[in-house]
């Protein structure tokens, strides 16, 4: 029998580790099980990436992306349920929470504006490295090449940017 592709082989070896990791990250063994299951479906449908360095690290990273996508989908769902609850609960004297939803949307827009303004105020190289990764999806190596600096400088730039942005939102 042919050897399984490297990602599948790594998954078989590391399934337990991945489950433990995502149980800690999500606080739920059931959610972790779902994430790891989704991960398996994804890797069994894809070709092995040409630039794969570590199959294990790839699994952790892809699983983390799936976890964040789930969280995002849940927020979207909650927002939609909330919107509907305003119709179904209508007619009664109770104030149906229309204001908080708008407040929330406004607050998150304002937070985004603050973050974008904070990026504008960063030193030019720092801002460029951050934007190239976050908004253009370049890898650290590609950014290093683009900016003509070392890879570790790129990492330091992005750390500086993130530190500033986190303090901006949560002083």
């Amino acid at each position, binding site marked *: 029998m042919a050897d399984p592709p490297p990602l599948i082989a790594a998954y078989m070896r*590391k399934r337990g*580790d991945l489950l*433990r*990791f995502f149980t*800690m*990250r999500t606080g739920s063994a059931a959610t972790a099980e779902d994430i790891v299951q989704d991960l398996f*479906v*994804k890797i069994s*449908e*894809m070709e092995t990436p040409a*630039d794969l*360095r*570590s199959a*294990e*690290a790839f699994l*952790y*990273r892809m699983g*983390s*992306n799936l976890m964040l996508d789930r*969280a*995002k989908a849940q927020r979207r*769902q909650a927002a*939609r*349920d909330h*919107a*509907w609850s305003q*119709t*179904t609960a209508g007619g009664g004297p109770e104030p149906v929470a229309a204001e908080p939803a708008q407040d929330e949307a406004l607050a*998150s827009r304002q*937070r*985004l504006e603050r*973050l*974008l303004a904070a*990026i504008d105020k960063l030193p030019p190289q720092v*801002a460029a490295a951050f*934007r*190239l*990764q*976050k*908004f*253009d*999806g*370049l*890898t*650290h*190596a590609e950014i290093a090449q*683009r*900016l003509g600096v070392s*890879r570790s400088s790129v*990492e330091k730039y*992005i*750390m500086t940017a*993130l*530190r*500033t942005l*986190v*303090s901006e*939102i*949560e*002083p």
Partner: protein
Amino acid sequence: MTTSPNTSPTLEAARERAVFWHVRLASDAASESDWLAFEAWLAEDPAHQKAYEAVEQVWAELDSAPPSARSNLAALQPRPNRRTVLAGAVAASIAAAAVGAGLWSLQPRTMVFETPVGERRLVTLADGTRITMNGGSHLTATLGRRERRVAMADAEAVFDVAKDPHRPFLIEAGDREIRVVGTEFNVLHHGGRVAVAVRRGVVEVRPKGATGGPAAARLTKGQMLVHRRGEPDDQVAAVDPDAALAWTTGRLVFKNERLVDVAAAIDRYGSRPIVVSPEARDLKVTAVLEIGSEEAMLGSLAQFMPVQVEQRPDRIRLSLRR
């Protein structure tokens, strides 16, 4: 370094380390031992997990940044974002054909959506409504100014409907019309049978053409309505909504259901009709089947049920195994 006076040194250190990990793990040079070390750090202190989530939150919030936030440097040489490519491969988009309605007509366009047998598709309508279509489904959608309307031919789909108080969302399935008052539910229309199962929110079902009249039924979470074409009545029963919607993740889930109903559900996945011999119709089935060909699904059923599968050129016959 931006240290505000009211930030404690521990919090500051946790935040510093969280930023380090976020950048390290985003690098394609990260190794398995990096991830294990990260896990150990998270486990050390709940404050570490909190600090890391704050970094992730900032990162995620920037996803809604406008395209103008991009660096001008990268515009020289655009390259596909890895995650987008990955997502694109999974959620294949659907080809939508516009029928009727000339380009300048004020009539709303009707879109036609079809899926081949065995292929699930996610369709997003212009109003943000998401429809997950099961294989072998055919439906049309018309987003008008006063109402939004979907007509289901032979089809099964899960609807996640965007709210628009000025435009009700109506679904026609056979001689039933479903009015959406809530958010996520499954509609199956096959062989003269309409089944509506609700996972979130509320939907109303009434005879077609009776818009505005009293609803035949108002379904909430965990309820399922079944109607057969031509019959005046609808049956409402409790349903496990996750089981009813399991096909969206490639499985069929049956809990203590009659073999004849299970056969009807599997029947949608093949071209030959499945017939069940009278003495086997009421056999109770509890099973989780991976969605595949009709033959494969019946084959796995026969492995743990006293059922015999007879393949004939024009149909498949199920009977009790002796």
